[in-house]
C-alpha cells in the first residue's frame, strides 16, 4: 500500500518514547493480547505500539487524569479511528471539567488530517451539544471551512443539518446554498441542502410558500447546464405528491421544450416529458415536433412508434445506450398504460 510519508516523518522526528517522559512515570504499559494464534497480525511501528500499550494501561485502570487526556491525544494522532480512545477521552473530559472551546480546536486539528473520520464528527457533535445554541455559528463556520476543501463531504453535511435542527442558525442557510451552487452548480449535496432548507427552515414558510421562486431557480440552473441531474430532480421534488400542480405548471414543459430545441443534452428533458405524459399531460404541437425532430435516421419514420412516449423511449435508448434496458422498460410501461 502507498504510505503517507509526510505525516509519518513529522511524527517520528518529534517522537520521545513515553517511557522517558516524566509525566508517564509509574505507568506500566499493557501489551495487546492477541491470543495464541493472531490472525491478520499487524507489524506495528514502535511509537504506535508504545502509545497503545500506555493507553491500555490507563484505560484499564480507569485513570481520568490530565495525563490520560494527553495520552488520548497521542493515541488519536496515531489512529484517529479508534473509537475506544475517543470514548475514553470523553470520560476524561467530563471528569476533569473540560474547556470545550479548546476541545473544538482539538477536533479541528484532527479534521485537518482526515475530514472523513466518523469518530471525529461524533465527538464534535458531542462537544457542540455541551455548548448548546451558542455553538451554532461556530459549527456552521467549521463545516463551511470543510466545504471549502471538499464541498460534498457527507459527514460535514450530516453535521451541518444536525446543527441547524438542534442548535439553530437557519437565517443565512439559503444564501449559503446559493453561494455553493454558484461555485459548482453540479454539487448535489448543495441541492439537497437547499431542499432541506426550504422544507424545514422556520424562517421561510415551508415548501408551499417557497415553491414558486424555487421552480424559477431550478429552471435557470437547468438552462445553464441541461445535463445536470440535480436541478431536474430538485424540480421534481418541489412537486412531491403534487402531480396535478406538476402537470399544470407550464414553466416545466416550457423548460423541457427549450432544451429539446437546442438539440443537445436533452436526456433529462425527454425523461421529464415522459413522466408528464405518463400522468396525462397533453403536449402541444410544438413539443411534439421538437421530439420528432430528435429522431435519428436509424429510428425510421415517426409513425413507427405508436405514440409520443414510445418515440421518446426510442430516442433515449440511442442517446443513453448504457441504460438501454431501462428505456426499453419505460417503453413497455408506456405501451401498457396507453
Amino acid at each position, binding site marked *: *500500500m502507498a504510505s503517507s510519508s509526510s505525516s509519518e516523518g513529522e511524527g517520528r522526528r518529534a517522537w520521545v518514547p513515553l517511557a522517558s517522559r516524566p509525566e508517564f512515570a509509574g505507568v506500566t504499559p499493557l501489551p495487546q493480547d492477541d491470543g495464541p494464534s493472531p*490472525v491478520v497480525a499487524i*507489524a506495528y511501528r514502535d511509537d504506535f505500539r508504545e502509545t497503545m500499550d500506555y493507553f491500555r494501561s490507563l484505560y484499564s485502570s480507569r485513570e481520568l487524569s490530565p495525563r490520560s487526556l494527553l495520552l488520548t491525544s497521542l493515541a488519536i494522532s496515531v489512529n484517529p479511528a479508534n*473509537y475506544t480512545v475517543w470514548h475514553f477521552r470523553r470520560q476524561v473530559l467530563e471528569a476533569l471539567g473540560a474547556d470545550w472551546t479548546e476541545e473544538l480546536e482539538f477536533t479541528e486539528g484532527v479534521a485537518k488530517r482526515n475530514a472523513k473520520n*466518523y469518530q471525529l464528527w461524533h465527538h464534535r457533535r458531542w462537544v457542540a451539544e455541551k455548548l448548546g445554541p451558542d455553538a451554532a455559528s461556530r459549527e456552521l463556520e467549521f463545516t463551511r471551512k470543510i466545504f471549502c476543501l471538499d464541498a*460534498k463531504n457527507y459527514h460535514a453535511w450530516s453535521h451541518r*443539518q444536525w446543527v441547524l435542527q438542534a442548535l439553530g442558525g437557519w437565517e443565512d442557510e439559503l444564501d449559503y446554498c446559493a453561494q455553493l451552487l454558484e461555485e459548482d452548480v453540479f454539487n448535489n449535496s448543495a441541492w439537497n441542502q437547499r431542499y432541506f432548507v426550504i422544507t424545514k427552515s422556520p424562517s421561510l414558510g415551508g415548501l408551499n410558500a417557497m415553491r414558486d421562486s424555487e421552480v424559477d431557480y431550478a429552471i435557470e440552473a437547468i438552462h445553464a447546464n441541461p445535463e445536470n441531474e440535480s436541478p431536474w*430532480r430538485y424540480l421534481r421534488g418541489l412537486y412531491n405528491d403534487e402531480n396535478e400542480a406538476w402537470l399544470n405548471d407550464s414553466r416545466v414543459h416550457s423548460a423541457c421544450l427549450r432544451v429539446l430545441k437546442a438539440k443537445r443534452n436533452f436526456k433529462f428533458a425527454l425523461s421529464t416529458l415522459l413522466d408528464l405524459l405518463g400522468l396525462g399531460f397533453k403536449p402541444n404541437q410544438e413539443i411534439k415536433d421538437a421530439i420528432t425532430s430528435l429522431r435519428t435516421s436509424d429510428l425510421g419514420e415517426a409513425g413507427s412508434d405508436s405514440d409520443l412516449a414510445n418515440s421518446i423511449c426510442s430516442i433515449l435508448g440511442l442517446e443513453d445506450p*448504457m441504460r438501454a434496458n431501462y428505456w426499453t422498460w419505460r417503453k413497455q410501461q408506456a405501451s401498457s398504460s396507453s
Partner: protein
Amino acid sequence: MGELAGDKHVKYILSVEKKKDSFESVVMEHLRLNGAYWGLTTLDLLGKLDTVDSNEVVSWILQCQHESDIRALQNEDGSFSGDIWGEVDTRFSYCAICCLAILKRLDSINVEKAVRYIVSCKTLDGGFGCTPGAESHAGQIFCCVGALAITGSLHHIDKDLLGWWLCERQVKSGGLNGRPEKLADVCYSWWVLSSLIMIDRVHWIDKEKLIKFILDCQDTENGGISDRPDDAVDIFHTYFGVAGLSLLEYPGLKATDPAYALPVDVVNRIFFGRCST
C-alpha cells in the same frame, strides 16, 4: 476485456504481513475483524477458503467477542446507535437487523419501529440517507434496502424511482459512483449493484461495461483491486470488486447474497442447514 486474476488476489490477501512503516496498516488496526471478513469472504467467493486455517481464525474471532446487547442499542424512534456511545446512522440499522437475523433473534427488537425509521430516511429521489433529510448516498441506500429486504419490508420502496436513480450511477467509464457528479469507485459496484438486485432492477445497468471497469481496477501483477484504475489496492476494494463480479455472475465465482453480503451457500446453511451453536 481482461480477466479476473483470481490467483494473484488470493496471494495478495494471504500476504497480510503489513510493512511496519505503512500508515495504512496502523490505520487499519481497529478494522482487523473487518479485514478478516473482507479477506475471508473474498477467498470463499474465489473458491479458495481452504487456504486459511479455519480453526485459527475461529478461535481468534471468539477472542474478540465482547459482551454487548444489540437490542439495547435501539432508540425510541426506531433508529439504532452504533454502540453505547450513541452515534445514530442507518448503517447501524442494517448491522443490527443483519446480525439479529443471522442469529435468528429479530424478534428481540421492535422491527416495525426500525422499519419506520428507515423509511423516514427516504429522500425525494427515492433513495436513502444516513438520517432524515440527508442526501441520497449509495452506501446508505444499500444499508436501508438491505435492512428492508431482511425484514420483508421492500414494499416501502418505490422500486422504479430508486432503480432509475441507481442505474444513473453508471458513468462513461462503465464504473458506478455513489452520488450524482462524483467519481466512480469499485466499492459502489457492491453498494449500487446489490441494491439493484434486491429491488429486481439490475438489468438496468450495462453489466459488460461494469465488469470491464472492475477488471481494469485490478493489480494483475501483485494482486488486489483498487478503487479506480491505477490507484493503490486494498483489502476493502478487493472484496467489493470480487463480490461485485459475483453479483454480475462472472464465471468461476460463487454466488453472493445481496442482502447479507455473504456467499449464498453460507446464508443457506445459516437459515436452512443444521442448527449449530
